């Protein structure tokens, strides 16, 4: 390969480049650290990419494109897969006629997430093949291979990346782009795609047959690689953990798995039989260890303490030496906080001063939990502020119930707050309820992405716009009011105090653009170039 083709790319950029190079017709997703830059890059490179309101819709859009014979990619963070799980499990049954790749970005150590769930469980649960790249070159290569596998076996394929793969820049040599994809064309296949029980039963059998064939194929697959070493220590590893392992134990014989579901069990059995001690090095849950032990392969796993957080070279050394002594505490960094002058500050100062019980949500504004506000009492998942708030309103005695306020951002409201609001209109608590939408006109936390409320597409060009106030009025919320929290602070506080004392259903929209987005917003609205 000529060195002129070398590029220094993040894992996310490498995935985007691979999608472009293999003729992906559509990319859909919802922003979520560490996955966000994949679609932004794909769009900047000239691909068609869209932010959908949430991951479920994004995956459904991608499924539709793949039903039409196109190659489609859906991208999301690990918890986004929870939202998209419903279509995922059944798309495994229907299969696809083009190709469909789901990129899920896990966040071991929770750099920017509410949990550190391990998406490898989803591959097993849904019956979807999974590839796990370790660096940007593999992110590029494996994404292209995932599309080839998906097309060949007519099955959705998951690519699991992690924070350290997504946001690490490494050297990539791209391959020549694939030839032009066949033009999308819909061909009817009622029994293959309409999952009523009579058609789903054979579809499930077809899925299991594909997976059995894939497992056999994976036994000799070059996505899994051997690294020579002595027979005293063998290591089975995947993803970035395999790189830590190679560095921590250069003397070891290593089997690095790239295609991790369905596993190449016999290849691993042979590997384990050939070494005196076989250790599994994996980040997160003991997925590989459980799978190998269930197949009767004797392997050693990591101590429970290493299930938490990311692995690194030092932790792998400790696992290998069976060191379970306490680890040194990480350096006490300066915690993040709401920006000086952030319009969200007014909301949290008010909620604090009024002594509210605040059910919170996911975004920058979750920082309202920290001093000097400490004005948040729960944060569970995207959209949960409204449902959790309603639950509290239903069961608490009136005096406490009247203090409950649900706080949600504008992008999160579009993602999964709307159904909560419908529940509020439908199952009305007797003390009413107050939902506060902190509308800063962007998806700030993930880096200022568009959403249906901004009226601009992923690439910031004009698009349809969905207004939360119109939605709220249309479904019958009694009292829908809009304030600029900075300019109309007193009026806002007065109206909130009055609403909390009433039995009405209220939606307060605090609308003022994010400080960080203000300059960009001016450029978009003036039609300037970004």
């Amino acid at each position, binding site marked *: 390969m000529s*060195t002129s083709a*070398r590029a*220094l790319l993040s894992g996310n950029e490498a995935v985007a480049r691979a999608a472009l190079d293999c003729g992906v017709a559509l990319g859909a997703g919802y922003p979520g*650290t*560490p996955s966000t830059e994949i679609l932004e890059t794909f769009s900047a490179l000239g691909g068609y990419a869209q932010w959908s309101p949430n991951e479920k819709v994004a995956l459904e859009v991608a499924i539709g494109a793949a039903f039409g014979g196109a190659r489609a990619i859906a991208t999301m963070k690990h918890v986004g897969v929870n939202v998209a799980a419903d279509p995922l499990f059944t798309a495994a049954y229907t299969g696809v006629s083009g190709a469909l790749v789901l990129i899920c970005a896990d966040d071991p150590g929770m*750099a*920017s997430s509410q949990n550190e769930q391990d998406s490898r469980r989803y591959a097993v649960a849904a019956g979807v093949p999974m590839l796990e790249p370790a*660096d940007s070159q593999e992110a590029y290569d494996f994404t292209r291979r995932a599309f080839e596998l998906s097309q060949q076996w007519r099955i959705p394929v998951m690519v699991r990346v992690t*924070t*350290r793969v997504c*946001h*690490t*820049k*490494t*050297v990539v040599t791209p391959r020549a782009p694939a030839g032009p994809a066949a033009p999308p064309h819909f061909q009817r296949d009622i029994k293959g795609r309409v999952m009523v029980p009579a058609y789903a039963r054979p579809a499930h059998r077809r899925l299991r047959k594909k997976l059995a064939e894939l497992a056999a194929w994976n036994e000799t697959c070059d996505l899994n690689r051997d690294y020579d070493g002595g027979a005293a220590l063998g290591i089975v590893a995947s993803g*970035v953990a395999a*790189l*830590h392992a*190679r*560095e921590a134990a*250069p003397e070891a014989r290593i089997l690095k798995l790239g295609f991790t579901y369905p596993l190449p069990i016999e290849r691993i059995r042979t590997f384990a039989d050939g070494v005196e001690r076989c250790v599994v090095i994996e980040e997160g849950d003991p997925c590989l260890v459980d799978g190998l032990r269930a197949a009767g392969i004797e392997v050693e796993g990591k101590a429970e303490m290493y299930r938490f957080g990311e692995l*690194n*070279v*030092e932790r792998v050394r400790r696992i290998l030496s069976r060191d379970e002594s306490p680890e*040194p505490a990480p*350096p*006490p*960094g*300066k*915690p*993040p*906080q*709401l*920006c000086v002058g952030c319009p969200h500050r007014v909301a949290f100062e008010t909620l604090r001063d009024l002594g509210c019980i605040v059910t919170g949500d996911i975004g*920058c504004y979750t*920082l309202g939990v920290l001093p000097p506000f400490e004005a948040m009492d729960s944060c569970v998942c995207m959209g949960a502020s409204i449902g959790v708030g309603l639950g509290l309103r239903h069961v608490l005695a009136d005096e406490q119930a009247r203090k409950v306020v649900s706080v949600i951002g504008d992008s999160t409201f579009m993602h999964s707050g709307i159904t909560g609001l419908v529940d509020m209109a439908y199952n009305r608590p007797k003390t009413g309820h107050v939902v506060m939408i902190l509308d800063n006109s962007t998806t700030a*936390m*993930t*880096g200022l992405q568009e959403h249906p409320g901004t009226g601009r597409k992923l690439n910031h060009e004009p698009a349809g716009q969905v207004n939360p106030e119109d939605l709220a009025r249309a479904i019958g919320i009694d009292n829908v009011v809009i304030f600029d929290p900075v300019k109309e602070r007193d009026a806002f506080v007065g109206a909130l105090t009055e609403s909390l004392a009433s039995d009405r259903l209220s939606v307060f929209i605090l609308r003022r653009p994010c400080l960080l987005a203000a300059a960009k917003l001016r450029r978009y609205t003036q039609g300037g170039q970004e």
Partner: protein
Amino acid sequence: MAGQVMNIVVAGLGGQGVLTASDIIAAAAFAAGRDVKKAEVHGMSQRGGSVRTDVRFGATPDAMVLSPMVTAGEADVLMVLAADQADVHRDVLRAGGALITPEAIDADRLPHPRSLNVAMVGALSKVLDFDEATWRAAIQAVLPPKLHEINAQAFLLGRSG
């Protein structure tokens, strides 16, 4: 087999240009034909919190980098853009490793108050073996054209200090 690897940790607070500084270091190693990995964590760090990036590159053209993260006690250089971050991150340094702090730069001579990060890359450049043309290429690869000149000045301020 992995050869000798150079380990650099850049730390500071959100908004100080830690990511840009480490991008320039990585781009210089890349331009010099080395294997290179640059790891960072986005997200919450954007809101004024502590930010740390790790840059690892081959000390020779044939050396390969495996793990993207610098192991505690193995950094050759720790560069902090905020003086109070030195103690926070000091344990990454190996014995005899170099600590570079903002004191390396005469702040009054900075071409722009926000160019401290690139001036400090200039200070760092004195302990690395890339030539000035490589650094210039790296700055141009990372920053938009309108910022090239001012950052070239900042870089030279640090390099000549």
